């Protein structure tokens, strides 16, 4: 190894180490602040305490917003998995023109500014007289979650050997049985990763949701930003720490089931 190669190596690993610290900084700071007893976010905190967690139970509007977020994220993910998988089968197996264009179309909400998509939908929904917050949120979030499902399931289906279905038929399965016993298990990892990322994308969405909330129906990110703007105190850090814990659990489950490297496939 030459001198300049060695320098390049050292530089690469130094930057990588710094990047790990940089990427984890917001998460570590949030957790540290949430366990401190300082109301002004002093770091390191003068003393450790649970006081911000104890406050969570009587923080106004928190639990309804969590419930709304989980409902919307869960339902929209299920609908996207259903519609998205059917569409992915059509794209991979069908023989019609424009299949590439359909994939691009269904993935495009991911690439356009969320705010613009939200405004367009708001005006569209108003035009047809839809003003109910919960329904609007659900309809909008299916669009947000669809790209994750289509992208991952199309990729997984292109690797699936469809003659296996014929084999199952020959061995006596009905068409439905063949799909349920052969295709669905083979797509399991794809359903899992895309469902996970779709769920989290819906849970975290701010720029689209903001247009469809009212005084009674708020999603968690909207409610949290309202706390940040009204009275910033470490209660927000405690909620955030809960979300970080959720993300860690999801990542560990994802790692056990499909492996971290597959999660990083882009």
């Amino acid at each position, binding site marked *: 190894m030459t001198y300049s190669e060695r320098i390049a190596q050292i530089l690469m690993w130094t930057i990588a180490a710094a990047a790990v610290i940089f990427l984890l900084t917001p998460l570590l700071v949030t957790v540290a602040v949430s366990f401190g007893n300082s109301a002004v976010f002093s770091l390191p905190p003068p003393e450790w305490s649970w006081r911000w967690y104890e406050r969570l139970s009587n923080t106004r509007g928190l639990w309804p917003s969590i419930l709304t977020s989980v409902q919307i994220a869960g339902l929209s993910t299920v609908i996207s998995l259903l519609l998205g998988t059917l569409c992915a089968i059509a794209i991979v197996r069908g023989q019609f023109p424009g299949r590439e264009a359909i994939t691009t179309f269904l993935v495009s909400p991911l690439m*356009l500014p969320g705010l613009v998509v939200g405004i367009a939908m708001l*005006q569209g929904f108003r035009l047809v007289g839809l003003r109910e917050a919960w329904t609007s949120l659900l309809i909008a979030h299916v669009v947000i979650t669809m790209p994750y499902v289509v992208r991952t399931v199309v990729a997984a289906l292109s690797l699936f050997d469809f003659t296996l279905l014929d084999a199952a038929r020959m061995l006596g399965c009905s068409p439905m049985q063949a799909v349920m016993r052969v295709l669905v298990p083979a797509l399991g990892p794809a359903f899992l990763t895309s469902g996970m990322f779709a769920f989290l994308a819906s849970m975290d969405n*701010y720029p689209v949701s903001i247009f469809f909330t009212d005084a009674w129906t708020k999603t968690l990110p909207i409610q949290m930003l309202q706390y940040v703007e009204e009275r910033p105190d470490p209660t927000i850090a405690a909620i955030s720490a809960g979300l970080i814990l959720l993300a860690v659990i999801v990542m560990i489950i994802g790692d056990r089931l499909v492996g971290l490297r597959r999660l990083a496939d882009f």
Partner: protein
Amino acid sequence: MKSDRSLVGWLAAPAVFYLLLVYALPLAWLLVRSVAGPEGLSFTLFRDFFADPFSWRVIGNTLRIAGMVTLVCLLIGYPVAFALARARGIVQVILLAAIILPLSIGVVVKAFAWQVVLRRDGVVSQFLVGIGVWSEPQRLLFTETGLVVGAANVFLPFMILPIYSVVKLIDPRLMEAGATLGVGPVVRFFRILFPLTLPGVVSGIAFVFSLAVSMFVIPSLLIGDRFQTLATLTGRSFLLMRNEALGSVTATVLLLLAVSIVLASSLLARRVGRFA
């Protein structure tokens, strides 16, 4: 079986129809409305917008911040993608976790954390005073530097992952072959390695730039109302000022900007792909 395969295309219908109805049509309607006057086609809204020097400052802010965020992400992300491809065992797990975990956490959480980090008595200020770079504590919150640092942090994974996805496919023997042929390491990097990574670099830049152009929560929390970008101005005109005419124009400009980034990057990716 033949009829099965021609019918299978209809399975796409529900999803396509759904997105056409609730997503494509409203977007088209937004575009139409922005050029619809009392009698037919009218570009008055755009003419007024582009005649105002304030608008140009907002566009300038948007592009400058997005450019700086993209540059920072590229400078950090490029070597990290190589490190990720070379890493094995526990080092690889740590790197992957540090990249994937922040991806699954909401932007409100991260922007709030950076508010805490960038304060006058925050970690960054304490650290820089501690190692003697700054003589006294300073506030980075509500400055452009603070905004770039926070945004680069949120978008960094979107630079690392696309570059990593091409780096991991490069055959390490290519570099050895170059060395055997007596080419120096610097020339080898720029002649062999760098061109092969270009498709990943292009898609990483496109991802980060378009995310940074349209970010809304991060500037709201890290720099405040006095600094406006196209996205924050769009959000404010709809949510606070109730000025939907202005909001429709900025939303349309933002939409066209985002679409041109996507189109330009896919054209560019095809070209660099051919070279590699």
